[in-house]
């Protein structure tokens, strides 16, 4: 992925800095809460939402199971309609293809529609290195580009900026890129939008090359679909002479009719609208209307590796709506930058480690950037079970095992950082498998209970800093059962976990009282 993210610290370190930034937290809280309620309302308008969601899941799953056929069919249809199809196995190859295509036109600048795929491959940087300037035209992308910043949200890359910050960036930077911001620009959103309109218009009107992604590609007809709001997409897709679209191979859908599902679920999930302001659909080239040359670059870049994982491949169903980001309690507090990827939030936590592998510190930490609350799964319009994939990837990080990287089967070594966890689990397994050893251990623990520390030493301190360690009861459940056969009161002298599990409701109070008691005793 983009070089910008190389050397990112692991999620916990990056998140620690982010949560201390009170402006950032306020901006994120405001934005995500606004959209959350609106989405719920937009979704509630459709009484068949659950069926649409299930149909979307089925379409995507079937497409992925037959991906090769659909891509071949797509290539045939696009070619028949006057387009040219290129295949790129990785980011470097895609960047090379696009750079060569732009060079062939003789142009030194391109206008871009917001696209996750081109961000993922770092296209702007690659073009810049070849002396070609790429102008981002989506308002949020413009804010990010002018502010020399990184995107922090799939749909609204500048979500971490409030209107005042945006005003400052426009006033300071626009003049260096083209038309300056109007004098006396205030932070009213309508004025900010007007400033962007004026700044970008000259670029749209003179642009000869447009670069885009696509939300959907229809295999049956060769039709490309771009869903947007501002009209910058329409500008880039229709005014230039040459159009280059870089699209992940998982964006193909088999039939024209499949759009009836996603054009209902995507806008409501992403911007919480019945329909987004503009959707463009084009098939190859059209005589006398729009670009005369159309190039489609089909991008793998880790997608086939993801496809090889039977649990993890569901991440490829994603239609990039960003509903999961907006409901995620971790995203709301940590913000998008902490995820160290163009794909932040819950979907990023399962997508990035699969597209890039779990070799780097940040990628190995991403499956842990979640409390597994499941809100993301609940709102996902294609029913990606994100918690399931997170747990699956955690397992891979801790235990290692076989996975696919660059198309080849590889064996991953268990991560070093998790050695203590593995040792503890192994020891626990050993003890639980030997009843005698377990009993001896429990009795020893019960007898030494007064001497137990309230916090763990060493690396365990971080864990116990925010948690109370459980207290060890005087008598273990097994000993109590042997003594009484389940008759009479709870285990001698108290308390604790054992009686709680043994005699249900009645012991609830007992154990609560017990805890108070223990608290005093330990103090």
């Amino acid at each position, binding site marked *: 992925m983009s070089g910008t993210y190389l050397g990112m610290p692991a999620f916990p370190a990056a998140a620690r800095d982010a949560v201390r930034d009170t402006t950032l937290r306020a901006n994120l809280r405001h934005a995500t809460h606004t*959209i959350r309620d609106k989405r719920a309302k937009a979704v509630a308008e459709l009484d068949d939402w659950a069926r649409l969601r299930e149909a979307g899941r089925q379409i995507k799953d079937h497409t992925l199971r037959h991906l*090769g056929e659909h891509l071949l069919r797509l290539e045939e249809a696009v070619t028949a309609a006057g387009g040219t199809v290129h295949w*790129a196995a990785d980011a470097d190859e895609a960047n090379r293809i696009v750079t060569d295509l732009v060079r062939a036109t003789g142009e030194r600048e391109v206008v871009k529609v917001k696209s996750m795929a081109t961000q993922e491959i770092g296209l702007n940087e690659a073009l810049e290195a070849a002396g070609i300037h790429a102008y981002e035209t989506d308002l949020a992308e413009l804010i990010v580009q002018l502010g020399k910043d990184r995107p922090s949200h799939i749909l609204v890359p500048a979500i971490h900026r409030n209107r005042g910050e945006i005003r400052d960036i426009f006033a300071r930077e626009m003049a260096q890129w083209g038309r300056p911001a109007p004098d006396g620009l205030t932070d009213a959103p309508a004025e900010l939008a007007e400033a962007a309109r004026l700044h970008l218009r000259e670029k749209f009107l003179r642009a000869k090359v447009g670069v885009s992604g696509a939300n959907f590609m229809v295999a049956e007809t060769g039709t490309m679909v771009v869903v947007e709001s501002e009209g910058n997409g329409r500008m880039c897709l229709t*005014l230039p002479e040459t159009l280059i679209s870089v699209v992940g191979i998982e964006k193909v859908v088999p039939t024209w009719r499949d759009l009836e599902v996603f054009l209902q679920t995507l806008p409501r999930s992403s911007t919480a609208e019945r329909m987004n302001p503009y959707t463009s659909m084009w098939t190859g080239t059209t005589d006398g209307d729009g670009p005369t040359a159309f190039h489609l670059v089909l991008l793998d870049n880790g997608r086939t590796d993801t496809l090889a994982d039977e649990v993890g491949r569901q991440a490829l169903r994603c239609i990039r709506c960003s509903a999961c980001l*907006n409901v995620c309690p971790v995203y709301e507090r940590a913000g998008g930058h902490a995820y160290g990827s163009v794909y932040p939030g819950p979907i990023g936590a399962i997508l990035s480690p699969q597209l890039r592998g779990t070799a780097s510190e940040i990628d190995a930490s991403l499956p842990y950037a979640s409390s597994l609350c499941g809100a993301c799964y609940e709102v996902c319009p294609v029913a990606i079970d994100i918690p399931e994939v997170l747990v699956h990837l955690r397992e891979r990080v801790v235990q290692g095992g076989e996975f696919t990287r660059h198309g080849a089967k590889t064996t991953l070594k268990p991560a070093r950082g998790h050695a203590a966890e593995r040792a503890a689990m192994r020891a626990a397994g050993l003890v639980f498998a030997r009843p005698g050893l377990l009993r001896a251990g429990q009795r020893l623990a019960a007898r030494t209970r007064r001497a137990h520390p309230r916090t763990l030493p060493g690396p365990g301190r971080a864990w116990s800093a925010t948690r109370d360690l459980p207290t060890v009861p005087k008598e273990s459940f097994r000993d109590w059962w042997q003594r009484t056969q389940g008759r009479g009161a709870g285990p001698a002298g108290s308390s604790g976990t054992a009686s709680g599990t043994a005699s249900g409701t009645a012991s609830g109070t007992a154990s609560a009282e017990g805890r108070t008691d223990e608290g005093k005793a330990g103090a």
Partner: protein
Amino acid sequence: MSSKDVILGRIGRALGPVPDEPYEAAVDRDYAREHGERTTEQTVDLLAENLADYRAIVHRTGEDELPDLLMRLLAYRGARNVLVPPALPPGWLAAADPVRIHDRAASTTAELDRADSVVTGCAIAIAETGTLVLDGSPDQGRRRITLVPDHHICVVRVPDQVVSSVPQALERLDPGRPLTWISGPSATSDIELDRVEGVHGPRTLEVVLVSGSPTADA
């Protein structure tokens, strides 16, 4: 080995042997073809309501009053000139004063940028979502003419051109044509995730619902 072969090879190995499963049977299409039961008249009302909800300005008129209404809308806007597609029905602008600008293949985008307004028809309109769909037919013109001017007046023949839902719309559209779906004026949610009207496309969208019009010229 080409990258195409590399990618297809990786897909093949990732999936292993895949059973033959017909696509028609793989997806349950038991979701609604349209939402709720409405009369034709109610569907047109819903279209008007949803268009207005996303800040399009909606007018309703009869075929006979249309030229007069278009004249007044352009005058109110103060348009000195108006961009017209190649085959707008002849009578529509009969009463309008602004100078007609025709979009020729050789017209530059800078020339189009000087147009104050544009008047077009449409292919269909979707009531449930408040959406207009243009397909580049002669009464709508090239995609760029409804994009560059800041004021777009779109005429919809009701009820003929109105469908209830997205599924019904796709059935009636030809994927081979360049399609533009428009739901309200240009907008953005990029500042604090709140919708603000008016970025790059027309900032004023007026929709004229014309009833009692013949379908012959459609």
